[in-house]
């Protein structure tokens, strides 16, 4: 499958990665090559096969539904690029 520049632009937008317009054609070409490689999967007969969800046959363990952590505001905010008054700060979201 060949990926056009518009599709590359849309994917970059979905992934929230800024790609300059002049870089889109090369990106589209790379996607096309990778997807061309992936297309080989169409040769495989997968009729009746369930998609794998867990590579080891195990049931996820459950734990008691209780609070087991918390009260770590300072540690949580420690690495934030911008934290103020106990919150993560971001550019204005709502007008």
């Amino acid at each position: 499958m060949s990926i056009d520049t518009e599709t590359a632009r849309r994917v970059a937008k979905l992934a929230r990665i800024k790609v300059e317009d002049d870089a889109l054609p090369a990106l589209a070409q790379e996607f096309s090559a990778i997807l061309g490689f992936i297309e080989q999967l169409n040769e495989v007969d997968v009729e009746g096969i369930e998609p794998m969800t867990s590579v080891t046959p195990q049931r996820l363990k459950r734990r008691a539904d209780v609070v087991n952590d918390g009260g770590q505001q300072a540690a949580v905010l420690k690495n934030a690029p911008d934290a103020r008054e106990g919150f993560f700060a971001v550019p204005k979201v709502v007008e």
Partner: protein
Amino acid sequence: MSDLSKLTIATARDSLRKGDVSSVELTNAYLDAIAGSSKLNAFVHHTPDVAKVQAEAADQRIKAGDAPDMCGIPLGIKDLFCTKGVASQAASGILEGFRPEYESTVTTQLFDAGAVMLGKLNMDEFAMGSSNETSVYGDVVNPWKVDDRNLTPGGSSGGSAAAVAADLCLGATGTDTGGSIRQPAAFTGITGIKPTYGRVSRWGVVAFASSLDQAGPMTKDVRDAAIMLEAMCGHDPKDSTSMDMAVPNFEAALTGDIRGKVIGIPKEYHMDGMPAEIEKLWADGTAMLKDAGADIRDISLPHTKYALPAYYVIAPAEASSNLARYDGVRFGHRAKLAAGDGITEMYEKTRAEGFGAEVQRRVMVGTYVLSAGFYDAYYNRARKVRALIKRDFDQVFAAGVDAILTPATPSAAFGLGEMADADPIQMYLNDVFTVTVNLAGLPGIAVPAGVDAKGLPLGLQVIGRPWEEGDLLNVAYALERAAGFVAKPQKWW
């Protein structure tokens, strides 16, 4: 100080217990070796202060007679592991300045066992790469050198491999999503094991592709791999995919007796265009196991060819989801914003600046294969093919095969920069023999088994049954003894 190049974890452990050497002495010797190794670019964050405190504590424990096997052993830690208060960047610009407030389960277990952290090791960014050329810290150089070229140590655990091969530490942690422990181990003449999926906790390890990622040890030989793996394994309630199962004494499994073991040789691993040297290495390894009393059997794993394409759907899909957390809000890099930029611009600029080209490529491919209209055609189909790849192995093991022998890599180490103009798929082919093992969740080990015509190391891979790392290590041990690989890189750095 004794010659570091001759020490192993096992011999250092014995010397420490006998009192022939202290952990402080050992640690200082390795810190000196690291200080003289900047040309290799393996250690990227140095933690001598942490190391000295840990070494002193280890010496106390050893004196008190309370010393686990890893007590006092100086290690390097891959930058993918979160280490409390110490830079943990996954070799990415987007985690610039990040110092975790917590310790990964693997490093917690190693430190609780008395191990010493010398520093953090270089790697491919977010473990995405096979040559250690995608790191924000720059390339790692392989200590093996046969001409004027600088060679890749492989990737993604390239810093770990180079550090162990160059005697900068006694062992190192690695992680393996498609071959990232085994391929660099093969390229540097060391041993590396990826355990069964679920054997080692992933908690606190920066996630790449959660259904494939496993941590493991990279060491000088099989015995050391057994010792260090045991200290890394075990159930962790903080990782819901970690298996609640007893951890055996892996070192005790190393008898070297493999008489009657059935070793499968998969015909699909004879790839077109495979170098004659690799074919010969594989045939020699097969003969060694036969001489040791193993029963050699030709087997078929018919879906092998589809492993790489399935991987290049599943791994990017999971990566696109895992890496969504790097948004410039909670940790790491945030782009400088222009007047009027809103939160979307902040995300987009931050991720464009913080992620390197290969990471961006994989995040976008993953985004595409998960997007509406393509989810079934790509992602679900890949997961079905993955089920078939696992079934191939299940059937072979059910038919009585105990372990499978294959080459570890399709070539010896190549030159840094030599793949720069190749399309990304050429680089992906490095993992052709290893990626099946991740998709099937199996344990796999790379063991150095010979050198090529230029004198560069080559490795063989042994693949084991799930949860039977002990048996797998024993087959690898028999292979190691028969191969008698003793070559070391000549120091030039």
